[in-house]
């Protein structure tokens, strides 16, 4: 066939590109790993000693508003708010923003916490969908803003522009902050008061973890395979990825599940972008840009020890929807902020963080997907050299598995939330196995998301949240 040599050349080129990309991706993560491990080692060693005296340091802590956007969360909202109100932090208020729920979310809160409607219009303009009512409890620091549906970012903006606390913490209604986590995540705001604008904490998987008074009582690994893959992935992402990015001052994601911000600075930049489907990433990128453009010295820090526990999807369809949304959001944010990519005037954010996300998390995933198809096909039809095929397998599987293993080893040596050796062994198995199954699937989903993005899809997709105790459907 006349085109055969050209097809072979193109396929071989794609395969080589995929191989090179694997090296770049894993090399990048290995570099971040080095930064992360040194930092975490220092940190855990320092935390291993208990200072003398009984600390009363509460007096210095700044006020925090914890904003919980809620849409049809009637089954989890009371537990969630009860847990948030009992956090070990003296000056925090909980603001639940009911985003036009069609169930009994507000009624449950009003009855459980004996809320009273404030019979006046809030005097500060809230840049969100119309607010119907605002309720307050007098004996607890709880406020409920009942507003028309406008999406998560819109709900977060309502809370951000309502609060008078200096710090703003966004969390999901089905997440659970560990009791002492607020005190830990606020620390940089006290120790670096002139520069800290945002801090992020670790998100850990709550599926099959039991809690007692806001403290994880028994951390066991879920039996669900998909959850196990995500457990490895979360360990890698938070334990190594974000710690490493923070060390090189290139952190451009603070998870929507647990982040703390200087409220005034967020209001200065207009709050969350209601058009974005990954409002958390978009916000942090915009924050960086604003502070750089206005020539301010600042820090965005990731802290590995404050933890929020969250439920992750247990079915492939739900996980696929979530990941497609994340990938579309990534592409959307990169496209929106393309003018900063590679620009020296944006410092490390322009030269390292954004290119890293573009080439590793964005294009890298797509090239990885191409590799998973083209390399085996070429090998089967006999075009590809056997040694190329073996090299590809080892680089794609071996390096990936090593990275995950380093994250698991780091967990064992430091925080030890998974302290049962059986769980550790299972995680290691999944670290190896993910390269044959989970990672190719994730690459496929990234392609799917890219097509959806090109077709202009900006939907959130229907997410199913099970909460800590029950199962409930939630918003479009």
């Amino acid at each position, binding site marked *: 066939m006349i085109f055969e040599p050209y097809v072979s050349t193109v396929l071989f080129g794609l395969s080589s590109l995929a191989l090179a990309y694997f090296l770049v991706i894993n090399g990048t993560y290995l570099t971040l790993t080095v930064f992360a491990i040194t930092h975490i080692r220092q940190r855990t060693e320092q935390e291993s000693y*208990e200072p003398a005296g009984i600390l009363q340091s509460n007096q*210095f802590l700044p006020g925090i508003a914890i904003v919980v956007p809620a849409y049809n969360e009637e089954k989890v909202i009371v537990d969630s708010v009860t847990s948030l109100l009992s956090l070990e932090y003296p000056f925090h208020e909980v603001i639940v923003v009911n985003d036009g729920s069609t169930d009994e979310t507000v009624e449950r809160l009003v009855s459980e916490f004996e809320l009273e409607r404030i019979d006046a219009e809030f005097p500060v303009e809230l840049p969100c969908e119309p607010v119907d009512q605002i309720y307050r409890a007098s004996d607890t620091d709880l406020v409920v803003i009942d507003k028309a549906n406008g999406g998560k970012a819109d709900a977060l903006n309502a809370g951000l522009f309502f609060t008078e606390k200096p710090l703003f913490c966004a969390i999901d209604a089905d997440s659970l902050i560990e009791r002492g986590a607020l005190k830990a995540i606020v620390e940089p705001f006290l120790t670096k*008061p002139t520069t800290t604008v945002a801090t992020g904490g670790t998100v850990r998987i709550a599926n099959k973890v039991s809690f007692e008074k806001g403290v994880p009582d028994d951390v066991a690994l879920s039996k669900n395979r998909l959850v196990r893959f995500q457990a490895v992935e979360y360990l890698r992402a938070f334990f190594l990825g974000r710690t490493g990015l923070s060390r090189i001052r290139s952190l451009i994601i603070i998870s929507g599940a647990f982040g703390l911000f200087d409220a*005034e600075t967020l209001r200065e930049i207009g709050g969350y972008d209601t058009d974005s489907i990954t409002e958390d990433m978009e916000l942090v990128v915009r924050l960086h840009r604003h502070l750089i453009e206005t020539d301010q010295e600042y820090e965005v820090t990731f802290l590995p020890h404050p933890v929020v526990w969250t439920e992750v999807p247990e079915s492939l369809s739900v996980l696929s929807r979530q990941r497609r949304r994340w990938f579309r959001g990534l592409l959307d944010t990169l496209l929106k902020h393309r003018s900063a990519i590679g620009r020296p005037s944006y410092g490390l954010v322009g030269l390292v963080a954004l290119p890293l996300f573009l080439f590793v998390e964005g294009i890298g995933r797509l090239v990885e997907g191409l590799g998973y198809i083209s390399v085996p096909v070429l090998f089967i039809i006999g075009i590809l050299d*056997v040694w190329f095929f073996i090299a590809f397998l*080892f680089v794609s599987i*071996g390096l990936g598995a090593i990275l995950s293993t380093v994250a698991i080893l780091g967990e*064992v040596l430091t925080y030890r939330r998974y302290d049962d*050796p059986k769980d550790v062994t299972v995680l290691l198995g999944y670290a190896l196995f993910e390269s044959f199954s989970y990672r190719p699937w994730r690459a496929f989903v990234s392609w799917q998301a890219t097509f959806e993005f090109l077709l202009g899809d900006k939907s959130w997709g229907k997410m199913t949240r099970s909460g800590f105790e029950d199962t409930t459907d939630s918003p479009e």
Partner: protein
Amino acid sequence: MNISTTVFVGIIASGLFIVFIVLSLLAIGFSVWKRREDTIKARSRDTVRQKLFEQQERANPEWTQWVDSLSATERENLIAVLDRYLRVVEGEQRETFLDVAAALGLGERSDAALEQSAVVPRLRALATLAMLDYPISVDRLFETCSDTQRTREAAGRLLYERRDEYENAARLGSELILWDGNHPMTIYGLETLAELNTGTETPLLYQAMDSISVWKESVVIQVCFVLEHTEQIDPDAPIGWLFPLLEHESSTVRTAAVRAFKQQGWRDTVRNRLDLRSLITDNAPNVRQATYEVLTYWGDEQAREYLEWATITEADERCQLVAIRGLLALETPREGFSDQIGLRKAWHWVEAEIAVSDRQRIRTSPDTNLEQLP
């Protein structure tokens, strides 16, 4: 494919495989070992604790002899048990535990640990020494612990915890923590500095007077945090250095400085010199808001007048709310005051908030007659 490529790929593949296996074995090995260690440690601590209390019951415990009879592991666990108890117990029982610590040579061990170059062992040693009565000189503290901010703070804490044993503990501790003013403090350092400067002794104010010009901005703000939360009663302590900070170019510094005056309202010099008019017209909302909060805390006639004025002139809605809340906490303004243009909406909101609080307070009060509720 030639042989050299084959060998190369083979080496890489084997290398990766070996690395994976080694890391996996390490992870599993550590997890098994740590779990076993936890179990043994917990069991051993229970046993040691029980033995400690049994020994304590004896008429003549002879701690040195008893400690010598323990195994090395038991002695380590005894140290951990003592560390826990010495933090919380007082009185006679504390004296007993101090005797056990002396028999263990805990003071000497901790003193020796101060020679180490690693930071964490020194921090542990300082934490232990802070709880003991083992004599340690100020010179030794300065000599072994002044190289890092964390060790300086831990040494400062030692001086605070054992302040009755040291002359000038507040001054020396504050000097250690602030040092050259170039190293921001941890929360622990802030807390200790506040403890050292509460009440009659306020060396911080003197140090600030001498050195504030060379301190880092973040340290200046932290010192303001400390002043905001501590009460000083020395009328002669210098406070003049705080005033220029109100004109600092950074609004964060100005805000912190305003808040630092919160506990200084009793000084006539402060009230006379503070230019409240310029503070409530500062172009940064944070500074104005902090001023309203300080005025509310002071609560005197002049504060009321300024708050009243601020509620009318304040352009920022968020700040206006703070001013109104402050004013309503201090007095019931004259009739018709809230009807002024630009004030009505915010005023109604604050009144509605107060009404909710009042209703709920009545409802939860044990003397409530439910029929009285609106």
